[in-house]
C-alpha cells in the first residue's frame, strides 16, 4: 500500500514537472518568435534598403578569404567551387584544402583549376597536420589549393587554410555548400556597415536535395518532398529562424554554422583558430568567441545572423545517415556545454549565460531525458491504474501539440522573412509537423540518445555520413 502511494506520488510529480517543462518550452519559443520576427524584419528591411552596387564599385570593398575544406568530395566539390567562382563580389580569394582525399577530388580540382605546385612559405600559427603541397591555379589567380594529411578533422583542414588566408575576413564553408551568387554581397553588407565591431556573421541555408545544379549554378529549385528531407527543412527553420535570429538580437548567437560562417581573422588569430578536440568545430569556436567577447566587453564586438537563405547544403537522405549526423551534433552540443559550463548564469556573459546556455542545457542536452522519462512514467502510471487511458492519451496529445506549435511558430516567423518555399510546400510542412512526434521525432530521439551514449564513451570522431549523389 505504502509503495503504491509513493509510486503514485512519483508519477504525479513527473507528470506535473513534464507538463511544466512543455509549457515553459512553448512560452520560451513564443518569446523567441516575438524577437525573431522583430530581428528578421529589421534585417529584411536593411537588405531591401542596402546599396549593393555601392559596395561592388567601391575601392574600399572589404576582401574575403574563403576556406573550403574537402575530404573525399568528388561529387560535390566542383559545384561548390564553381558557385564560389561565380560569386558577385568584388574581391575575394579561395583556399581549397584537400584534406587527404583518397577519391577523385584532387584530379577534379586539377582539371578545373590547372594547378601548378609552388613552394609556398606561410605562417604556421594555426595547428594542423602537415601541409604536403601548395598549388596555385593557372586558370583562376585567386584560387590556392593545399594538400594535407587527413586525420585532424574539419578543424585541422580549416586551420591549414587559415595559415594561408590573407584577408581580414575569413569565410568557412562545407564542400557541399552551393552559394547564391549574391551571398557575399548580402552578408558582407553588414560587415561594411561596421567592420570594427562585427566579428562574426552566421547565415541561414536550406537543403539542396532535389535541386538541379549545373556547374555551380542552381538551375531548378525543386525542393524535395521526400519526408526525411522535408523534416530536415523544418528542423533548419526551427533552428535558424525559430531561435538563432532571436539570439542574435541579444548578441548571443550560439552557433556560426560550419556550412557557412564568416569570422574576422584577427579574432581567429588571437583564439588560435578551430579546435580538433571536439567532434565538430563550429559550436565550440562560437562559444570560445563569446568568451572572448565577454573578456573584451569594452570593444563592443558583435556576432550577427542574417535571416535569409544565402546558400544550400546537402542533407542526409537516408535514416542511418541522418542518425549518424544527429549523433555527432548531439555529441558536440554536450561536449561544448560541458566545456563552457562556467558561463552558465554567469553575469559576465550576459544574455548568452542566461538565455542560450540554459536553453542548450535543458532543451538540447537534457530535453531528451525529460521526454523519455516522462513518457515512461506516464505509461507506467497508466499500467498501474494511477492514470486512466484518457489522461495518458491526452498527455501524448499535449506532447505532440507542443512540438507542433514550436514548428508552427518557427514557420510563422520564417515565412515573414523568406520567400523560399511554395504555398504547397509550406502546407506540406504543416502536415508533416503535425505527425512528427510519431515518426521523425522518434528517430531523432534515438540519435540523441546514441549521441549522449557516445559522448559518455568519449567518442570524439568526425564521422561523415553517406550522402546521395546530386542530380
Amino acid at each position: 500500500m505504502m509503495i503504491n502511494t509513493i509510486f503514485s506520488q512519483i508519477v504525479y510529480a513527473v507528470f506535473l514537472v513534464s507538463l511544466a517543462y512543455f509549457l515553459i518550452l512553448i512560452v520560451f519559443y513564443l518569446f523567441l518568435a516575438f524577437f525573431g520576427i522583430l530581428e528578421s524584419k529589421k534585417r529584411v528591411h536593411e537588405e531591401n534598403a542596402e546599396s549593393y552596387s555601392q559596395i561592388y564599385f567601391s575601392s574600399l570593398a572589404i576582401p574575403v578569404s574563403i576556406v573550403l575544406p574537402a575530404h573525399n568530395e568528388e561529387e560535390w566539390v566542383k559545384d561548390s567551387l564553381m558557385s564560389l567562382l561565380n560569386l558577385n563580389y568584388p574581391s575575394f580569394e579561395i583556399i581549397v584544402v584537400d584534406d587527404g582525399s583518397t577519391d577523385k577530388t584532387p584530379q577534379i580540382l586539377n582539371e578545373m583549376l590547372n594547378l601548378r605546385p609552388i613552394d609556398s612559405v606561410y605562417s604556421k600559427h594555426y595547428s594542423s597536420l602537415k601541409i604536403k603541397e601548395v598549388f596555385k591555379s593557372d586558370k583562376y589567380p585567386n584560387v590556392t589549393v593545399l594538400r594535407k594529411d587527413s586525420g585532424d578533422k574539419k578543424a585541422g583542414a580549416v586551420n591549414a587554410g587559415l595559415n594561408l588566408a590573407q584577408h581580414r575576413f575569413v569565410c568557412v564553408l562545407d564542400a557541399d555548400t552551393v552559394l547564391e551568387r549574391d551571398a557575399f554581397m548580402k552578408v558582407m553588407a553588414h560587415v561594411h556597415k561596421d567592420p570594427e565591431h562585427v566579428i562574426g556573421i552566421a547565415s541561414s541555408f536550406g537543403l539542396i536535395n532535389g535541386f538541379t545544379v549545373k556547374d555551380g549554378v542552381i538551375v531548378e529549385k525543386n525542393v524535395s518532398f521526400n519526408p526525411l528531407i522535408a523534416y530536415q527543412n523544418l528542423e533548419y527553420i526551427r533552428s535558424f529562424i525559430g531561435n538563432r535570429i532571436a539570439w542574435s538580437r541579444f548578441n548571443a548567437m550560439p552557433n556560426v554554422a560550419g556550412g557557412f560562417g564568416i569570422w574576422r581573422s584577427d579574432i581567429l588569430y588571437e583564439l588560435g583558430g578551430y579546435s580538433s578536440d571536439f567532434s565538430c568545430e563550429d559550436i565550440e569556436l562560437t562559444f570560445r568567441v563569446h568568451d572572448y567577447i565577454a573578456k573584451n566587453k569594452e570593444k563592443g564586438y558583435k556576432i550577427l545572423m542574417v535571416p535569409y537563405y544565402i546558400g544550400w547544403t546537402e542533407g542526409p537522405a537516408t535514416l542511418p545517415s541522418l542518425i549518424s549526423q544527429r549523433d555527432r551534433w548531439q555529441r558536440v552540443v554536450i561536449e561544448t556545454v560541458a566545456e563552457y559550463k562556467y558561463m552558465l548564469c554567469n553575469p559576465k556573459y550576459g544574455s548568452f549565460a542566461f538565455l542560450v546556455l540554459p536553453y542548450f542545457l535543458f532543451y538540447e542536452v537534457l530535453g531528451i531525458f525529460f521526454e523519455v522519462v516522462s513518457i515512461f512514467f506516464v505509461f507506467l502510471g497508466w499500467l498501474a491504474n494511477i492514470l486512466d487511458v484518457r489522461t495518458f492519451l491526452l498527455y501524448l496529445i499535449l506532447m505532440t501539440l507542443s512540438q507542433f506549435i514550436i514548428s508552427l511558430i518557427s514557420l510563422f516567423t520564417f515565412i515573414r522573412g523568406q520567400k523560399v518555399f511554395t504555398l504547397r510546400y509550406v502546407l506540406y510542412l504543416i502536415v508533416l509537423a503535425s505527425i512528427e512526434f510519431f515518426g521523425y521525432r522518434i528517430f531523432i530521439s534515438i540519435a540523441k540518445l546514441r549521441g549522449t551514449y557516445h559522448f559518455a564513451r568519449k567518442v570524439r570522431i568526425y564521422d561523415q555520413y553517406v550522402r546521395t549523389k546530386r542530380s
Partner: protein
Amino acid sequence: MGNYFTDIVFKVDAVLLFLAAFLIADIFFYEISRIYFDNRRIRKLQAIKKNVYRVVLTEKELSKKDVLSIKSCSLPIFLDVATNRVKEGVFFNEAEQQVFKKICISEASVKKALSIADRSFDKWRRIEAMLFLGYAGVNEACQILKKSLLSKDEDVSYFALLALGQVKNMDSAKALLEFLRRKPGFRYKTASLLGQFPKDIAPEVIKLAGDKDYSVRFWAPQIISGLNDQSCIDKISGLLKDKYPEVRASACQCLGAIGDKSCVSDLKKCLNDESWFVKEAAMDALEKILGEDCIPLIIGLIKDNSWVVIDRLKKILAKNITGALAYIQNFLTGDDELTKKISIEIIQISGCIKELYEGLLAGGRAKTRAAIILKVMMSANAKGLGPELYSFSNEAQKQIQEILGQN
C-alpha cells in the same frame, strides 16, 4: 486525483489546439496574400522597368552615346541585382536614373516623400522615403537627410548616410565629411560613399588631412584614392611624414592609386620606414606607378625582417618576372639560403618555368640565365619543374635534359 490531472491536461490541450489552429490559419492567409501582393508588385516593377528601357532607347534628347552606355551597363549582373531585390525606383546608371526621374518622379511624389522622410513615425517608411529622395537626387532633401544622419536610431542614421551618398553634390559631401569626423563607427562606409562622388569635392576632403585626430586624417587619402584627384598630391605627400604609421601607409596607398611619378622619391623614403605596413604600402604604390621599373628600388627588401613585406615583394616580383630574373639569378648563385628559397618560390608563383625551358632551347644569353636558374631549382628539389617539361615534344625534352645535364 486522476480526474484532476485529466482536467488540467484537457484544458492545456484545448488551449494548444486553439493556438495551433490560429497559427495554421495565419500562415495560410499570410502566404495567400503574399503571393497576390508579390505578383502585383512584380508586375508594377516590370512595367516601370519596361517604360524606362523603352524611353531610354527611344528618347530623342538622349544621345547615342548615352544609349550605348546604358546598353553596356545593362549586363546580366546589374539586371540580376536589380531584379533580385525587387526594389522599385532603383536603377544603376545615370541615364536610367534620369529617365526614371522623368517618368516616375513628379513634384507631388517628391513632396510626399519629403513629408514622409521628415515626419513619419514608422522608421522603415522614413528610410524608404529617404532612399527614394537620395536615388532621385533631390537636392532639397539634403536638410532632412542631414538631420536624419544625426538620429540616435542607428538604422535611420545609416540609411540617411546611404541616401546622402546618392545625392552626390557639395552639400551632401560636406554633411558626410562632418559625419565622418563625428562618428567613428560609420567611417568605413562614409569614406567608401565619398570615394564615388565627383572629383570637385576633393578640396573639401583634403581638409581632413589637417584634422587633430589621426583616425580622421587616415581617411583623407583613402577618399582621395577613390576620387583619383591629382591636385591633392602635395598635401597627401605631406602625410607621408605623419606621426602615425596608419596615416603614412594610407598616404602611400593613395599616391599609388593616383599614380603620379613626382612622388616616387617620397615613396622611396618610406621603404625604410620602421613600420612593416608602411613599407608594404610603399612597395605597392611604387609598383603601381613604375611597374617593372620599381624592382631596383624594392629588391633590397628581400632581406627585410618582416614576413609580410617579403610576401608582398614576392608577389610584385612574380608579377614582373621578366625584370626580376636578373636579380633572381644573382640570388640563386649567392650564398644566402633564405633568399635562394624565396627566389625559387617567386619563379614558381610567376609560372615562368615554361619560359625558362623555352629560353634554354632559344640559346644565347637567355639560355645561360635559364640554365643557371633551372639548375639551382633542380638541386633544391623545387616543385613544378616536371609538369612543365612534359608540355614539350619528346625531342625538345631530350634536348633540355641534355643542356641541363651538361651545364
